[in-house]
């Protein structure tokens, strides 16, 4: 059971930072609060009493998003459901509806924020692989005297390990800024123990842009989650595929590559098998979203033999 002595709901960044700076040790920032409440239960953290909870969901500066200069600036209060319901976000972040639909359920997505998911830094976080694929950076703010001091850091540098990030004690993440990829086809693969409300055993994301000939890969982004302490971008596979004509053989070759990345503490063999199929499925699903014909299905099948 989660209890707290004080529950703050600041409405501006300076107010939030001032409370955060003065908060007793052990206080927590919350946004959607969908992760912290189940955490404080028997079998996980048990009964927890926090000195203070500082709820950022009403901080005006953290609301909404902007698209500019090929990048999308997502305020820290953007929730997962927005990636499904907002036309502009769907167009600019074509992999995110697929990631979002596999994340929890409609009700939790209405509360849970992408930034909260990134900051919690679970190895199985669904939001991290897509954001790695989109070259995301985090915007972070702290108080320097009375002035606001801001910095940005690449997501790949921010996530240090399971539950570990570069976030300093007095800092708040205000936004995640990522590539805008209109015209790309996106996809997301996930395995877990049920369809809704499941934490990934492993997940993968793909974003593909096809050239005008509908056969050549103009650009591709791939990343994996749940296979090691931190989610990983698959640069080597991207290099292999970028600029090439997409064929069944090429997809098979690419699918065989990420098995070596599996570094989880448990079920390594299972995850190696899964990620092989994942890359293939992620590419094929993204090609469907690109609206191009798939490489001959029988060829892909034969290439496995």
């Amino acid at each position, binding site marked *: 059971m989660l*209890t707290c002595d004080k529950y703050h709901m600041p409405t501006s960044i300076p107010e939030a930072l001032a409370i955060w700076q003065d908060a007793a040790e052990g206080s927590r920032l919350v946004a959607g609060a969908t992760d912290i409440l189940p955490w404080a239960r028997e079998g996980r953290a048990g009964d927890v009493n926090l000195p203070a909870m500082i709820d950022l969901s009403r901080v005006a500066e953290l609301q909404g998003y902007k698209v500019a200069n090929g990048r999308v600036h997502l305020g820290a209060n953007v929730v997962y459901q927005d990636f499904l319901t907002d036309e502009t976000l769907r167009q600019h972040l074509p992999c995110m509806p697929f990631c979002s639909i596999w994340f929890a359920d409609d009700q939790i997505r209405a*509360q849970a924020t992408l930034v909260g998911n990134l900051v919690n830094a679970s190895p199985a976080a669904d939001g991290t692989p897509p954001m790695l694929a989109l070259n995301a950076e985090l915007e972070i703010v702290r108080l320097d005297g009375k002035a606001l001091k801001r910095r940005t850091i690449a997501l790949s540098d921010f996530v240090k390990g399971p539950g570990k990030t570069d976030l300093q004690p007095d800092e708040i993440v205000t936004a995640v800024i990522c590539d805008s990829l209109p015209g790309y086809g996106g996809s997301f693969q996930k395995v877990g123990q049920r369809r809704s409300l499941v934490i990934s055993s492993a997940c993968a994301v793909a974003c593909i842009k096809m050239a005008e000939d509908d056969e050549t890969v103009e650009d591709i982004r791939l990343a994996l989650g749940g296979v090691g302490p931190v989610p990983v971008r698959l640069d080597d596979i991207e290099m292999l595929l970028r600029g090439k004509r997409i064929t069944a053989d090429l997809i098979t070759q690419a699918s065989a590559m990420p098995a070596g990345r599996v570094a989880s503490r448990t079920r390594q063999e299972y995850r190696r098998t899964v990620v092989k199929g994942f890359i293939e499925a992620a590419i094929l699903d993204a090609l*469907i979203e690109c609206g*191009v*014909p798939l490489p001959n299905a029988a060829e892909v099948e034969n290439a496995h033999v």
Partner: protein
Amino acid sequence: MSEFELEMTVNGKPIHRRAKPHQRLLDFIRDDLNLTGTKEGCGAGECGTCSVFVDGKLIKSCLMPVAKAQGVQIETIEGLAPHGSDLTTVQKAFHKTGASQCGYCIPGMVMAATSALRENPDAGIEEIKERLGGNICRCTGYTKIFEAVEIARDVIAGKLSSTVLDADGAGKSYIGNNVRRLDAPSKVAGKLRYAGDMVMPGMLHMQVLRSPHAHALVKSINTSAAEALPGVACVVTAADVPGEDGFGVFVHDQPVMADDRVRYVGEAVAAVAADDVLTAKRALELIELEYEEIPAVFDVEEAMKKGAPVIHDYAAGNLVKHIPIRKGDIEKGFAEADLIVEQAYDTQPVEHAYLEPEAGIAFVDHDDVVTVISPSQNITHHRHMLAKIINKPINKVRFIMSPVGGGFGGKEDMIYQGILALATMKAGQPVRLVFTREESIISTAKRHPAQIKYKMGIKNDGRITAVSFEMISDGGAYGLSTEGVMRKAAILSCGPYDIPNVQIDTYGVYTNNTPSGAFRTFGAMQSQFATESHMDICAEKLGLDPFEFRRINMMRDGAVTHTMQTLGSVSIGRVLDAAEKASRWEKGPVGVRGSERKDVGGDDTRPPCTLGARFRKEEKNGRQEVA
């Protein structure tokens, strides 16, 4: 803790109250506003029994700190069809299709269905399934719920007449006709009160201290610091039992709370009744308990060995019950066989996972009648057992069965009603206990895990000459329903097959695992799993079609069972015919089929699991062939 002012609108009414910082929206709705149609099934966002609308968006109120609800509009199940008004179309459709069974998930399910159709009035079945994906039902298998949502969608859109929601005529017989449940309107409207929804003036809240050890002696319990905590009314332990302690369905081997020793992790050792749950929780931390761990046993074969830790003094060999059945001459039967097939089968424990966690409320009435209200599946037996435990005549003990939010056998055991009775007798005030989901899983009975050794003798023509069946079941720390489960497993062990020579032994064994108890089928599932698996294996070895092998051996009218009962009419032949047809079985022994299976992929089989029906693009060519 600093309280704060909270203003919001709930079901159209302005609310202005003080709230505590740790309260969840769910707590505020249920405890402060007494709107108990919103349920708590898990407290972790998994089940959806607590779904409510916040500013028009459906959320899980167990995952929302109440402070977040400052200034918002809340709509609960009670707000969909306010008192005195007609049920909504969605609610009527749930009533019509029989979508509410135990009813505990139903308010949340109705809210999710309402949300799905508000978000997309034209949603197809795949989208409906996805949008209901955050809500769990344990009774229906969802089919009737999905059917209700589709009917509601079409009625709302004007594609179906609202008369489809009316009751079908029962005609001359209820059998074969679709009859609406009498209790469904109260369930779809969230009006039905389960035990955890009930409140009484002056009611105390109970929390239970549970053993962290699988097997330990309780050397001392000191409750004085807990009793001294302001707000605590009483602490109860086994020492408070005035009568003869012990309950169970067949053998009364389980004390209300552990007395001199604990036998499984999660066993109740003491309980506190206090003004509120938080105070009761704090008091638990003040109870001083001294344990001395002793060797424990977790494996049935280990438990049956000489020298194994003895779990109950009355049962030196850790045996709860052995049920032997003999028919014919087993040695002769095996001697006649052309082929003998042996195989071992294991099954695992299973949790009932009803959506309503255990809950109860107890009070002593004006005539000193100790009254316990709970979703007990066996109140008459509980009443008799409790009378003995609290040393009162039967007319001074009353059990009231509250609506059961799912039982499946898991609520047959008097696992907490005795603790409540002791506390209300000691405190002189009503006491309520509501289990958390974790508590429900850790402390209540499971389906018996079984280890089965099967040996079957068969003639080359497919006739079974003999079966020897040995099942060792893990009964866990207490007897509960183990004896009955062993009897039924033995009775049903050889399935509906006419076997002349039979040797059956089922054993229920004590271990330090979570107790096993009643669970729908009551032992038949384990034995049928083994029997039917074995039938398939034997059919394959004989090169026979598995249906054919069963038909050769099935009981026919007038057959004598292995418990020597003569059967009048036997339906297994018709069952096999129907199953063969429905499964589009291709005749022949296993392994003779071509590369393509004709029995999968039809209209009545389940398509692969996908998500994204609301936005996914159609594939351009045969993606599913890739596999």
